[in-house]
């Protein structure tokens, strides 16, 4: 019999009951909740007169709607200018208070983007099943966990039953071997992967990221990669537990301590695919060939190296793809065959659950240090992923570096990644963004998003257009 994949092991550990039709009841260890996808779930529980199955498995924080300017943030919920946003954040507080759910409220130091808060607090741990009403929940798989995004009905289902009804996904291994070049980051790796397999390439699969590049990658880099597994269509992305994982998790607030730690580590050390494990699909990519990436279109698969050009639809044989390219060029206001370095930008956004951790802040700060934002760039905002990231960055003086370069230093939240708060693009504006989706209108009505790494976003902010960060001298 073939060995088990990491996903097989995580699945088997959590099966409560296997049904005849192939679906199973899967036990959920941790449920992360935010304000946008939960109110209807709590309301559903109330209407059905149901109680949460296990309140101590839930942790909540508001992130999508919270303002990021210090002025608006200073007065907490009362300070939120948008009345509908205010109600939504207040509703989360009310639901958590009523049910006794642990919540990091708006101005709690531990507040932040759910997928940043989970790992940094130790609320998300290796070996766990983790859900959240948010597709980027795949992030936590970097810890060697099975972590998936769910809809609001499933949020209600997990609150009420501690279980998810699921069918086992297929196994995909994405191997990236070799060594990354200087200036090439985890974001570039995952964008290159999506460019290779497409936004539906991982549909129906749980993806394990393996090979030299992920073994050598920091925990924060792995979180960035797994975050975007959903952009390749996969609900779950994951990386095997190793010394890097254990070092990251140790001493986190909610991580097990003392004897429980030793007991946990003994189990977590099993969380890797067996040597003879069978994958339904294996994709191999040479890490040494990956260059800094820039998305040019309206889907994360529409991505090319910074040294490349915008594609020309005449070269596409597939009719559906061809019209997709034509539509994207029109929406983005770009010409076929235009050099990526000729795309001028209006705004810079450094943040989001993909790239708002301390290493991202450091990478961007290293590029802007001693330089100035281009005059043609209207605004460059840096939004740390949590209060704790913000605190750490300020302790290192990164905030001062950004401000000196003409970048704004903000309060934590999802911000311009999806523009549910006041941070957004205007019609027609191009943005160098470290977020995860370049869909039409995502960052604001008519906004044009280009997905890049923190270093590349910072570099574009300095140059006023996309530029290969590797040509700018000292980079990490």
């Amino acid at each position, binding site marked *: 019999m073939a060995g088990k994949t990491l996903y097989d092991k995580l699945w088997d550990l959590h099966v409560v009951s296997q049904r005849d039709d192939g679906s199973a009841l899967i036990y959920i260890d941790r449920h992360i909740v935010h304000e946008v996808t939960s109110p209807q779930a709590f309301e559903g529980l109330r209407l059905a007169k149901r109680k949460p199955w296990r309140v101590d498995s839930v942790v909540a924080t508001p992130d999508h709607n919270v303002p990021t300017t210090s002025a608006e943030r200073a007065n907490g919920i009362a300070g939120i200018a948008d009345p509908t946003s205010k109600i939504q954040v207040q509703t989360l507080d009310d639901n958590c208070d009523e049910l006794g759910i642990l919540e990091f409220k708006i101005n709690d130091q531990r507040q932040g983007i759910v997928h940043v808060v989970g790992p940094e607090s130790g609320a998300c741990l290796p070996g766990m099943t983790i859900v959240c009403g948010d597709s980027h929940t795949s992030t936590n798989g970097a810890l060697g966990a099975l972590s998936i995004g769910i*809809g609001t009905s499933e949020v209600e289902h997990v609150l009420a039953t501690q*279980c998810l009804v699921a069918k086992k996904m297929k196994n995909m291994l994405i191997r990236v071997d070799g060594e990354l070049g200087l200036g090439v980051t985890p974001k570039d790796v995952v964008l290159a992967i999506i460019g290779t397999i497409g936004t539906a390439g991982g549909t129906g699969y749980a993806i394990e990221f393996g090979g030299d590049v992920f073994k050598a990658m920091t925990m924060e880099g792995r979180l960035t990669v797994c975050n975007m597994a959903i952009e390749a269509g996969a609900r779950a992305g994951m990386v095997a537990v190793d010394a890097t994982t254990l070092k990251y998790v140790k001493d986190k607030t909610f991580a097990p301590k003392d004897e429980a730690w030793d007991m946990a580590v003994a189990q977590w050390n099993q969380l890797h695919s067996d040597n003879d494990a069978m994958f339904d699909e294996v994709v191999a990519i040479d890490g040494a060939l990956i260059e800094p990436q820039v998305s040019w279109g309206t889907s994360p698969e529409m991505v090319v190296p910074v040294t490349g050009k915008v594609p020309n639809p005449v070269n596409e044989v597939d009719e559906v793809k061809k019209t*997709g390219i034509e539509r994207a060029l029109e929406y983005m206001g770009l010409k076929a065959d235009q050099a990526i370095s000729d795309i001028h930008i209006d705004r810079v956004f450094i943040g989001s659950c993909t790239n708002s951790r301390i290493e991202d802040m450091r990478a961007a700060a290293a590029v802007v240090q001693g330089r100035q934002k281009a005059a043609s760039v209207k605004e460059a905002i840096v939004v740390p992923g949590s209060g704790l990231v913000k605190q750490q960055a300020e302790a290192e003086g990164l905030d001062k570096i950004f401000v000196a370069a003409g970048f704004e230093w903000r309060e934590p939240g999802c911000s311009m990644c999806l523009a549910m708060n006041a941070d957004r693009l205007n019609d027609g504006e191009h943005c160098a963004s470290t977020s995860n989706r370049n869909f039409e209108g995502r960052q604001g009505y008519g906004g044009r998003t280009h997905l890049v790494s923190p270093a590349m976003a910072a570099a574009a902010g300095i140059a006023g257009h996309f530029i290969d960060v590797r040509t700018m001298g000292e980079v990490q």
Partner: protein
Amino acid sequence: MRAFTQHTGLVGPMDRANVDTDLIIPKQFLKSIKRSGFGPNAFDELRYLDEGSPEKPNEGRPINTEFPLNLERYQGASVLLTRKNFGCGSSREHAPWALDEYGFRAIIAPSFADIFFNNCFKNGLLPIVLPEDTVEQLFAEMYAQEGYRLTVDLAQQVVVKPNGETLTFEVDEFRKHCLLNGFDDIGVTLRDADKITAYEQARKQTAPWLFNFGA
């Protein structure tokens, strides 16, 4: 949940691949704490020529007359015909809520994004996967014939064309069962409460650190 058994309705097009949930219902509408009210803003950025917002009445907004679903011939469409990877992106269940409220009962595509696909079943909206060439053929027939209608029979797992030809589709047994009967799946799961408790008791022994969070 509303049951789905059989439905006959006018077919309307969303003729592009990779339609994401931001396109189905833009984020400004997600601030609502209700399950309803999203229908008038389904495909908002394509339907109207200006930017919509929850505070803005839709009456009087400029209509995009080139958007196919706005054409007279597709008014009242209840079967959405679209391309691969429909519903990709965000997990927002507001997307199926919006499509349901718009009037769609079934969506036909060569493939769907996983989370969206799942969310549809929770809301009595049936996503149907058919082969790409079959979908291509349906597009051709729909464009050629005004008033093109399809019948979807969930029990038989067939889509019936106007000429009587049937197209079979696959559907998960448990999901089919819930949808046909309009079952609330929380109720179904809670029938296994003893099993969940037993699992929990065993896990408390082997992995106690999972059970003292926030203590």
